[in-house]
């Protein structure tokens, strides 16, 4: 089926099978920040934004994204670098595989709520798994980022 996707502001016409998911379409088009973790909507690593909403790209059918605005990490580099600097400064990341999904989730949160409490941050990040860190360092980094933003 022929579909038009608007990825980070650029239009693409692609031909997609009925069961193709955005994760595969995006990677084929070179958006390699989008990663496959669990492939069963349980880890948050493949998270992207479709029409401004955070979704798991491993479950979003490409045919359902026709004419929709898709945002991947490649499209929000400046914001992502700003947040990531605080997380890496805490030595929170080891393999970094969870990082694109975490950042897309955090950016979605900050778009909806500029000044969340740490409780709200943890609730929003609850679907994002990290097998290396134990989360404490990530949370410290985010708390510092929010403090600096507020100041």
């Amino acid at each position, binding site marked *: *089926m022929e579909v038009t996707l608007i990825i980070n502001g650029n239009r693409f016409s692609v031909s997609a*099978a*009925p*069961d193709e*998911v955005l994760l595969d379409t995006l990677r084929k088009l070179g958006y390699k920040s989008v990663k496959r973790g669990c492939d*069963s*909507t*349980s880890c*948050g690593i493949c*998270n992207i934004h479709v029409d401004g*909403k*955070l*979704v*798991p790209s*491993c*479950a*979003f*059918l490409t*045919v*359902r994204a026709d004419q929709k605005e898709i945002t991947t990490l490649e499209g929000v580099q400046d914001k992502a670098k700003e947040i990531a600097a605080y997380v890496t400064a805490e030595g929170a990341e080891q393999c970094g595989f969870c990082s694109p999904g975490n950042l897309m*989730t955090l950016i*979605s*949160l900050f778009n909806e709520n500029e000044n969340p409490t740490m409780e709200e941050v943890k*609730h*929003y*990040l*609850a*679907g*994002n798994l990290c097998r290396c860190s134990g989360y404490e360092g990530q949370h410290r980094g985010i708390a510092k980022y929010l403090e600096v933003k507020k100041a």
Partner: protein
Amino acid sequence: MKIKEIINPSDIQDAYEQLVSRKNATLMGGGIFLRLQRRTIPFVIDLSNLGLNSIEITSTGFTIGAMVTLRQIETNASIPDGLRACVRQIAGVAVRNMATVGGSVMGRYPFSDVLTALVSLNATLHFHKKGAVPIAQFADNGLDEPDILLNICVPKVKNSLFAVYKPVYTDFSLVNLSISKEEKYTISMGATPKHATSITVESLSDSHAVLDQFDFETDRRASAEYRRALAKVLLEDAFEEAKVWK
């Protein structure tokens, strides 16, 4: 999951005719659970283009479209507390942005948090062909023919709450319960590990007597004794919380 063919009708009668005339036709809500199935689905009817994705406030309560996402419920402040609270720990925000209330009901998942809340709220399901079906009847028996869930009517209640035990945040529930108050109190208990059943009481005085009205069973996730012990504490806390209800 493999899909051979998918259509996206914009007319409900058209969608229904496809459903009953095509062998093995499958409806798609959020598509999240369909995606997890290890089978080939020959023909999918995508319900996203039928205008079933809004929440309307009526004089008697709420009409929630079958395609309303769990996240829409979570973020709508006018939805009763018991229903809003039940979606909060269902997977992450990303999944809740896709998973629909219709898919959550129609799956009749025994672990369901959504069914438990809707049973206590005495919700009514509205189907394209069958018309109105009380949620408790659907939870017990399912449907006897293919049909499309259009929306769910949730009557206004004075108060409601939802309580659950999940081993970790966003895990499946080991037991869940919901209480709503209008004239009387309707108490539902689910994930026992069977889907929710409910009782109605005049007052919230004796939580132990209420506990005795529900059956608990053992499965690979928890023993009947453990579930009963959890339910006892959840009920006691819920009764305490409801003391301030007017």
